[in-house]
């Protein structure tokens, strides 16, 4: 196995376009797969020394998070946590303190687990990926990256440079909730992310709802968002949102939960996350 450390995006794209190349960011998924023999790369391309992949910036367009920024670094960024608390809380749910020190936002997305905690929160927030490749850069909404369990839409040579989050308008809030049968160190049975914006009268003008662990990919549930828009996020709207969220689920039965349980819990969590996002928007 060869190991390469590109220091700019062009070099990284060229290395990643080789046969048998595999990107390395935090390594918390890749090293487990290497050990298990589940992947056998010819070359591992460590992206952490590409400066554009590291750090958090704030500008007129909103927020930019380098794709190889660790969850620990993001969790310590008070201004980002204040702008997008749901996103930051979601990525802080990933693994232990040790995992937080290594795991990255780009890695959590590209590993393409249907249960990845940061992904529904990013989708709900309307985050977009800067995808770099040998032919330059393109912008892709987060919900278009994961195409199936362990599969993503990146072409050979492509990798995620960074994430763009808009500046949340006034009276906006977001939240992410997941269900696990314990308090720490587990994989989501269901995850639900909601972001919403209210007008001066408290009427919801914009919403996005996303679910994790209830289908082969994280889901953007437009019907659930429509249930909120035009309402005051009252009990009737929340019930309609819950019904739409449950209806969108296509989960599997596994040791973490049955189909019926996941469908039910998706509605409950979406409702609670919407209530929390609403409280943040009004608070």
């Amino acid at each position, binding site marked *: 196995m060869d*190991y390469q*450390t590109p220091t700019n995006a062009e070099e990284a794209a060229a290395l990643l376009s080789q046969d048998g190349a595999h990107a*390395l960011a935090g390594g918390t998924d890749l*090293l487990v797969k290497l050990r298990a023999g589940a992947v056998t790369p010819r070359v591992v391309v460590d992206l*952490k020394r590409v400066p554009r992949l590291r750090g958090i910036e704030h500008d007129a367009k909103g927020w930019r998070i380098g794709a190889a920024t660790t969850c620990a670094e993001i969790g310590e960024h008070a201004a980002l946590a204040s702008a997008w608390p749901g996103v930051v809380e979601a990525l802080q749910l990933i*693994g232990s303190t040790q*995992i937080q*020190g290594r795991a990255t936002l780009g890695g959590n997305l590209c590993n393409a687990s249907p249960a990845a905690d940061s992904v529904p929160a990013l989708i709900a927030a309307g985050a977009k990926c800067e995808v770099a490749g040998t032919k330059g850069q393109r912008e892709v909404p987060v919900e278009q990256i994961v195409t199936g369990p362990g599969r993503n839409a990146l072409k050979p040579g492509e990798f995620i440079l960074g994430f763009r989050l808009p500046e949340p308008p006034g009276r906006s809030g977001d939240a992410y909730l997941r269900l696990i049968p314990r308090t720490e160190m587990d994989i989501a049975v269901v995850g639900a992310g909601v972001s919403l914006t209210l007008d001066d009268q408290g009427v919801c003008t914009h919403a996005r709802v996303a679910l994790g662990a209830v289908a082969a990919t994280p889901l953007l549930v437009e019907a659930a968002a429509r249930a909120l828009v035009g309402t005051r996020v009252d009990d009737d709207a929340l019930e309609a949102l819950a019904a739409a969220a449950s209806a969108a689920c296509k989960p599997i039965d596994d040791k973490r939960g049955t189909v019926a349980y996941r469908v039910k819990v998706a509605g409950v969590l979406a409702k609670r996350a919407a209530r929390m996002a609403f409280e943040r928007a009004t608070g």
Partner: protein
Amino acid sequence: MSKRHVTTSVNGDSVEFLCSTEQTLLDVLRDELFLTGSKEGCGSGDCGACSVMLDGRLVCACLVLGVEANGREVETIEGMSDGEKLHPLQQKFLEHAALQCGICTPGILVAAKALLEKNPDPTETEVRYWLAGNLCRCTGYDKIVRAVLDAAAAMRGASAKPAAASSVQMQSA
């Protein structure tokens, strides 16, 4: 594949080693540098027995490639005591009998030290959550948590101003 030459810093000492790209940082620490304090429990980042600091961040050495350490700073359990003088956490682990078989202990000490550097006065809940990635199958965790809290108190006492320390003594006397 020929071996890679890696230059890094371990516990403040400049270190060079040769390793294959497949070796993890834990493999390198134990098998090339003979620093066997860091343990291999699971090899998949679940148990925390191989916890080390990499550029000031707590990580599992089993989830880092040895070659990734090039040009970086690694701190391990071997750098924790000051020669024969134990770190307050090590001392408190002995006093509280916060270990039995000892396999998890180096990782827990490294993780607890990282916590106290970030938060010198953690609550019990904060200690338990911070150490959630360090599994111990012997103690049931209570003694570990008490030892960490006691060490934190001792370290705060030691770093307090002498005047404040003496007033505490007078109150307790």
